[in-house]
């Protein structure tokens, strides 16, 4: 990874964090929509990154945002989980045709596999986040509903971010 790429990822994280802090935590969409967007950063980290480094990075960034977003340890735990399980959805060999591939990078070619990757990992992230947040079996169905709805809304915001900032370069 060259310095420019690191800087771009850094910008992406700061952008997502500020978006969460200033917009998503302040808009009030009722009790069932609490979108969390930081997961996009871990989803987009390149495949070449060392696995242990990926785990430590996502944990540290999660903890940093937890302190400032006032969510004690929730982001750290959820981002770490996503960093750990995302390799199961990434292909071992890169397919030469981009439309059948999930290649995490800052220039994403959206396709059906990407959609599945984003949907599934977003849902796992939100479910882990809210089950630890509510921490109660009494509200289990509510947790599922909140996870699904927040996940869908979060993906909508992520789609906007894709369209605005993460377009593939013109060939």
């Amino acid at each position, binding site marked *: 990874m060259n310095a420019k790429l690191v800087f771009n990822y850094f910008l992406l994280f700061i952008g997502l964090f500020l978006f969460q802090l200033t917009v998503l935590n302040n808009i009030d969409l009722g009790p069932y929509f609490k979108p969390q967007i930081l997961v996009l950063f871990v989803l987009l980290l390149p495949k070449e990154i060392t696995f242990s480094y990926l785990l430590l990075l996502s944990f540290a960034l999660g903890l940093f945002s937890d*302190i400032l977003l006032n969510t004690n340890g*929730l982001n750290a735990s959820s981002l770490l989980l996503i960093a750990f399980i995302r390799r199961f959805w990434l292909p071992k060999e890169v397919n030469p045709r981009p439309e059948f591939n999930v290649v995490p990078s800052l220039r994403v070619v959206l396709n059906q596999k990407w959609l599945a990757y984003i949907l599934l990992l977003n849902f796992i992230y939100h479910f882990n986040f809210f089950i630890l947040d*509510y921490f109660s079996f009494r509200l289990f169905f509510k947790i599922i509903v909140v996870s699904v709805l927040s996940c869908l809304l979060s993906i909508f915001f992520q789609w906007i971010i894709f369209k605005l900032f993460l377009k593939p370069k013109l060939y």
Partner: protein
Amino acid sequence: MRKILLFVLAHRNTFLFFLLQIFALVFIVRFHFYQRAAFFNSANNFGEIVHHNQTRITNYLNLDKQNKALQLQNLGLLKGKRDNIYGHDTMLWQSEINTENFDIVAAKIIYNTTNRPLNTFIIDKGKRDGLENGLGVATALGIAGKIINTYDKYSLCLSILNVKSAIVMPKIKELGNKSGTIEWMGSDPSSVKLKGVHKYEEIKLGYQIVTSGYSINFPENLPVGKIAKIAKQEGSMFDIDVALSANLKNDYYVYVFKHKFKTQLDSIILNNKTLE
């Protein structure tokens, strides 16, 4: 031994994952609320500065609503002196409660959440103004929460909108001393549930839920809300929805109740415990 070492080395990332996950879980479970407030004190100080400025701006935009709330409050005070000119539509506690034993401190909310399972707000009065942990907080319209941590200039309060602990001992005003417990179901910030009211009680829609006089942190007859929906369940208890009086999303001005003889009463309770 060598094999164990090799095993650990081969799966070092999995071990790292579980180690970090345990760290995160410890953060979530151990540093809940009360400890967290103390632990992240410096971060919270930074947050308070941000929130203070943010609230100054939103306060300016909300001046119209605030004026109306103050007008209502003045109305309540006037009503205490003149009889029934204005009717009884709105619940105004200012003329109903007995504040003889309470010092009342006016404060302003500078940070507020209503969409978390455990909601909190921060008010701009603290130890310097004589506040302590456990004191009750109410807005101009009704009960809001209680203080759980005090700093020099600020206090952290637990909102009535939390799924874990009950803030208040309620009673139904029209029936005298028929009480239950207030629970929040974690979704709608304008309503709570009243549990534990037996089916033979003759309750009706619109009955007022107020604080009982059993707690020294709240004066008696401070409004909690009105009964908005009564559902009959299978068991022997009613399932009652209570519409909260306080508008916890938009209210900024609150009052903290401090019992004048709190230390004395606390020591009596403590002595009583040592006797047992």
